[in-house]
């Protein structure tokens, strides 16, 4: 699956320009599902990028685990979920020194969550690269109850926490790594537009 092309939107909406090798600098590479293919392509373009790389992969049912571990990174770890991998990611960031590079590939939820962790650990934005692959489902925060709903694929959708029907906005929080969901029928309770699939 090639890198996703998103249609232009407001400035708040993150863009994912694609991964470019920064050479043999110490790095962490985090991917989920089809994001593995972006890492494989990156290593093909510059094998040296693996010299001091630590890969964390969340397969989410995708079949790329064996190919990723065969690349020969210093460390390659597979996790059942991103939440399960976060302690490992936090430990890697805590040990990191300036010059460290973060490569993120896969869904917006993964990219946003790990980028938010990295920024709160002090990693400069310029050291974070990302490439979108796979599902375009979004990680959404309900602006009313603040609950996060993962993998939202339709607009509007029902908040998994408070049950309000929420409109999927392109308005994004870098701190949370999530888009904002706003009640769609606040003015006209019960009148809800038909739910549609989210498009790139």
């Amino acid at each position: 699956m090639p890198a996703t092309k998103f249609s232009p939107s407001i400035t708040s909406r993150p863009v994912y320009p694609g991964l470019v090798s920064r050479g043999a600098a110490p790095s962490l590479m985090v991917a989920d599902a089809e994001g593995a293919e972006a890492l494989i392509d990156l290593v093909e373009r510059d094998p040296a990028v693996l010299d001091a790389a630590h890969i964390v992969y969340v397969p989410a049912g995708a079949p790329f685990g064996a190919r990723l571990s065969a690349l020969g990174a210093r460390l390659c770890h597979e996790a059942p979920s991103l939440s399960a991998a976060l302690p490992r990611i936090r430990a890697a960031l805590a040990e990191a020194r300036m010059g460290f590079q973060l490569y993120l590939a896969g869904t917006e939820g993964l990219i946003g969550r790990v980028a938010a962790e990295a920024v709160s650990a002090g990693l400069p934005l310029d050291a974070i690269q990302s490439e979108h692959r796979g599902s375009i489902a979004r990680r959404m925060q309900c602006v009313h109850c603040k609950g996060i709903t993962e993998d939202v694929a339709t607009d509007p959708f029902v908040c998994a926490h408070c049950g309000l029907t929420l409109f999927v906005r392109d308005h994004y929080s870098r701190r949370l790594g999530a888009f904002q969901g706003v009640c769609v029928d606040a003015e006209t309770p019960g009148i809800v537009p038909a739910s549609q699939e989210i498009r790139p």
Partner: protein
Amino acid sequence: MTALTLRVAAKEPLTPLVTRFRFEHPEGARLPLFSGGAHVVVEMTDGNQLRRNAYSLISDPNDGSGYEIAVRREDAGRGGSRFMHGRVAAGDLIRVGAPVNLFSLDLRARKHLMIAGGIGVTPFLAQIRQLDRLGQPYELRYAARSRAEAAGLRLLPRSPRVHVHISDEGGRMDLGGLLAGQPLGTHVYTCGPEGLIAAVEETAARLRWPRAALHSEAFLAPPPGRPFTVRLARSGITIEVGPHESLLEAIEAAGVDAPWLCRGGACGQCETAVLSCRGEIEHHDHWLDAGDRASRTKIMPCVSRFAGEELILDR
């Protein structure tokens, strides 16, 4: 440019080459506060010549009772620092511009790493007072050739955050080791000779530091050089630039108003369009990029000079 008339309250030699000056308001009024890294432009009237030199403030940014600077005597310079050393005395009145900061701290940093070469320690003296007040972590690395020349030794606090490297004593700085071991979120600030700034930039680039975490200030005084002639098209006059004055000073001496801010080739304020150039512009600034220089359509008159047949400026 707002300038204040201040009294020289103290003049104290720190080393054979570096002298500290303290300026206070003649009526004891408070001076505007500033931020660490700020400089002031000191006006020196020497006969018919008006020189303006920029000096970093070394006193506490939060102390409005006076401004302090440390001036290194440059015997090969245009004469500003020689004037300060030889002709300015305690009790004199002198015109000093309001503080301007082109080398400020990025207060989002998790840690501030400061690398000073020689007299380049001056902006950091104010910055560390600001950081002490804010309680933000920093590390200062001060490199000097010899203990006798190191004016910073008289001005820096004794602190585990301050490290001195005297090259005569074999205490050279290991830039590679220093930059490889910095925690995430560190910003690095370099002030000193061009060679030191270039070495820090090269080392940081090799270690993949993001550009946005690198800051530098070269203490760039306008270099003297051979005299040359310039045509100012809008003013309709032709002026001579002497060997010990800058193009900007010659423009000012001719009574032509020209914009400026740092007078050291860094801020971009004095950028002037070149209408015709038959010869070579000697670019000494840090403002114009390689493309600007190749196009021969811009000059920074505060530090740059010219050699050749004809230079016509849009001024």
